[in-house]
C-alpha cells in the first residue's frame, strides 16, 4: 500500500495508527520467521507514540522501519553485531528519527543488516540470517538487507537504510523495491553509527518512487549537528515527480555494460532505458574511464575510515566487555576480538594496514587521488547528460553462502554502485523486471539512475517514468 493512500485512510478514519501497528506486528509474527528481516520491535512503545500523533502531518501515523544502525531513543541499536547486542540502548534520537517524528511517522522495528554495514548480502550479521522474500534460498543483498526484505515482504510500509558503497540500492534491486541514496550532505548522518564517514548516507527503501520522494522530503535538510550536511534548500520532490523525461539526456556508460554482467541483467536494463527513450529521453553513450579503479579505491578508503571509526568500540563506555581483563590494553584487545565478526576484523586490519607507516602514501593518499579522478569522470559526464543509467549489480541475488570464503569476489559485486559514494552523487535503484534463475524462480533486477549532486528531484522524475 502506498504512503499517500495510507495517509488518506488515516486522515479519513478508515484505519488508525494503532491498527496499522497491530497489522505489522501480526505480519512480523506470521511471516518474518522465514525471512528474518526484523531483529526486534516494541509494539507497546509505538502504540503509545501513535496515541498522540498528529494525523495531519505528512507522514502522520505511518510506521517506518529502521535499519539497526540508527539511534532511536530507548531502543536497541545492535548494528548486527555481538558487540552491541548485549545491552546497548540508544540514549538519543538520530536526526533522521527526529525528522521522521516531526513529520508524524512512527519509527517501528529494528531491521537486520551486515555487521556495522560491512557486506553485500546481510550474511555478515552476527545475529541472524535474512532471506530474500522473492526466493528464500537467496540473499536479500546488503548491507540494508533487512530494510529491503521487510518492504518487499510487506512487513514494512517503508524503511530507512544506509548506503556506503551501494547498501541501499543493491538490496533494493535484489528484492524488487525502490532504494534511494541521496547526495552526500543531503541527509544528516548524526546518530547513524559511522562505518566510513566520507561515504555513508541514509536514505529510503520503499515500494514506489513516489514513496521514496515522500520519505526523502521528511528526512532531508541541513543539520547543525552534522558538519558535513549542507545548508541548501530542500526542493518539493512531489511537485516535479510527474514532469516526465522529455528532452532529458541520459548517459549509458560503456564501462558498465561490458564483460562480467549477466546478459539477462543487461537486457532488462537496456529495456528500461528504451522505455525512457520512448517517453522522450535521449540516450547517449558516455565514458567513465576510471570505473575499473573504483573497487580498489573504495576498498582502501572505506576500511581506512572504518578502522578509525570502529576504534570507539573498546569495551569501555558501551557494548561488549571481556571478562576479567588483566589491564586496559587486554580489555581493548579481548573485547574487540570477542565482539567483532570476521568481516569487521578483516576490514579493520585492512584499514589499519593501508594507514600504517610506510603504506599510507602508497595506498591511502593514492586512493584519495584516484577518488578525485572518479569524481571528475562524473563531473565531465554531467556536462553532457542529465543522468546516467546502469545496472545496479552485475547479477541478480545470489544464493546464500555462495561467497562464504571469498571476500574479494563479494567486493567485486559492488562495482556499479560504489563509484557514486566515492563521488558523493545521488543514485536510485528502480525495479526493471525479473530474470529467470536456473531453478525457475523469478529474480528482480534493478535499474540504477545516477544524478549530479543534489539533483534528487530530477532523479525521482526519471525513476517515476522508469517504474
Amino acid at each position, binding site marked *: 500500500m502506498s504512503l499517500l493512500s495510507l495517509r488518506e485512510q488515516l486522515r479519513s478514519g478508515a484505519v488508525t495508527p494503532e491498527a496499522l501497528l497491530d497489522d505489522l506486528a501480526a505480519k512480523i509474527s506470521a511471516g518474518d520467521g522465514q525471512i528474518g528481516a526484523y531483529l526486534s520491535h516494541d509494539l507497546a512503545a509505538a502504540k503509545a507514540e501513535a496515541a498522540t500523533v498528529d494525523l495531519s502531518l505528512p507522514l502522520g501515523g505511518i510506521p517506518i522501519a529502521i535499519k539497526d544502525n540508527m539511534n532511536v531513543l530507548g531502543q536497541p541499536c545492535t548494528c548486527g553485531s555481538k558487540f552491541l547486542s548485549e545491552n546497548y540502548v540508544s*540514549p538519543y534520537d538520530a536526526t533522521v528519527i527526529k525528522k521522521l517524528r516531526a513529520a508524524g511517522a512512527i519509527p517501528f522495528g529494528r531491521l537486520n543488516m551486515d555487521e556495522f554495514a560491512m557486506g553485500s548480502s546481510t550474511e555478515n550479521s552476527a545475529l541472524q540470517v535474512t532471506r530474500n522474500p522473492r526466493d528464500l534460498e537467496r540473499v536479500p543483498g546488503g548491507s540494508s538487507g533487512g530494510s529491503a526484505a521487510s518492504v518487499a515482504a510487506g512487513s514494512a510500509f517503508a524503511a530507512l537504510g544506509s548506503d556506503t558503497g551501494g547498501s541501499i540500492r543493491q538490496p533494493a534491486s535484489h528484492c524488487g523495491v525502490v532504494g534511494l541514496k541521496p547526495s552526500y550532505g543531503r541527509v544528516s548522518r548524526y546518530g547513524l553509527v559511522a562505518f566510513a564517514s566520507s561515504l555513508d548516507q541514509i536514505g529510503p527503501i520503499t515500494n514506489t518512487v513516489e514513496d521514496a520522494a515522500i520519505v526523502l522530503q521528511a528526512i532531508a535538510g541541513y543539520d547543525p549537528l552534522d558538519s558535513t550536511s549542507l545548508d541548501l534548500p530542500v526542493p518539493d520532490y512531489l511537485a516535479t515527480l510527474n514532469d516526465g523525461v522529455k528532452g532529458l539526456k541520459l548517459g549509458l556508460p560503456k564501462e558498465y555494460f561490458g564483460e562480467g554482467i549477466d546478459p539477462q541483467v543487461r537486457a532488462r536494463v537496456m529495456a528500461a532505458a528504451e522505455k525512457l527513450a520512448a517517453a522522450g529521453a535521449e540516450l547517449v553513450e558516455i565514458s567513465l574511464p576510471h570505473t575499473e579503479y573504483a573497487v580498489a579505491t573504495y576498498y582502501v578508503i572505506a576500511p581506512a575510515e572504518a578502522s578509525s571509526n570502529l576504534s570507539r568500540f573498546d569495551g569501555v*563506555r558501551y557494548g561488549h566487555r571481556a571478562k576479567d581483563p588483566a589491564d*586496559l590494553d587486554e580489555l581493548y584487545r579481548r573485547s574487540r576480538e570477542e565482539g567483532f565478526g570476521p568481516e569487521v576484523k578483516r576490514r579493520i*586490519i585492512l584499514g589499519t*594496514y593501508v594507514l600504517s607507516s610506510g603504506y599510507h602514501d602508497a595506498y591511502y593518499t593514492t586512493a584519495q587521488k*584516484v577518488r578525485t579522478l572518479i569524481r571528475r569522470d562524473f563531473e565531465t559526464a554531467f556536462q553532457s547528460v542529465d543522468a546516467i543509467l546502469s545496472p545496479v549489480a552485475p547479477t541478480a541475488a545470489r544464493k546464500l553462502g555462495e561467497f562464504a570464503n571469498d571476500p574479494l569476489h563479494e567486493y567485486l559485486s559492488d562495482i556499479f554502485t560504489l563509484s557514486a559514494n566515492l563521488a558523493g552523487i545521488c543514485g536510485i535503484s528502480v525495479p526493471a523486471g525479473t530474470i529467470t534463475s536456473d531453478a525457475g524462480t523469478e529474480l528482480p533486477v534493478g535499474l540504477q539512475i545516477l544524478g549530479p*549532486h543534489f539533483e534528487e528531484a530530477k532523479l525521482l522524475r526519471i525513476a517515476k517514468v522508469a517504474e
Partner: protein
Amino acid sequence: MSNTHIDDRTLRNIANLARLELSEEETAVFRGQLEDILGYVDAISKLDVSGIEPTSYPAPVFDRMREDVPHESLDREAVLRNAPEQAQHQIRVPKVIAEA
C-alpha cells in the same frame, strides 16, 4: 592474483595496532585473504596521480563550526546504563597505571 606478501609477523603487528587479538586460525585465513585484496588494490598504483589533489570528502564542506552556545547533553543516567561497569555515577575501567 597477488604479489603482495604479508607474513604472520606483519599481520600480528597490524592486529596489535588495531587492538585486535587474532586466533591462529584467523591469522591464517586473513593472511591469504588480505594478500588477495591488497594484490587487487595494487591496481591503483599503476595510475599516474602526480599533481592530482586528493578528495577527502566528496562535498564542498570545510571548516564549518557549530555556534558556540550551550545545549543539552545526553542524559547522564541513560548513558551510564550502557556502560558495562559503573561505580559512583562514573564508568569503571581496569587500572590504567601499573604498580611500581
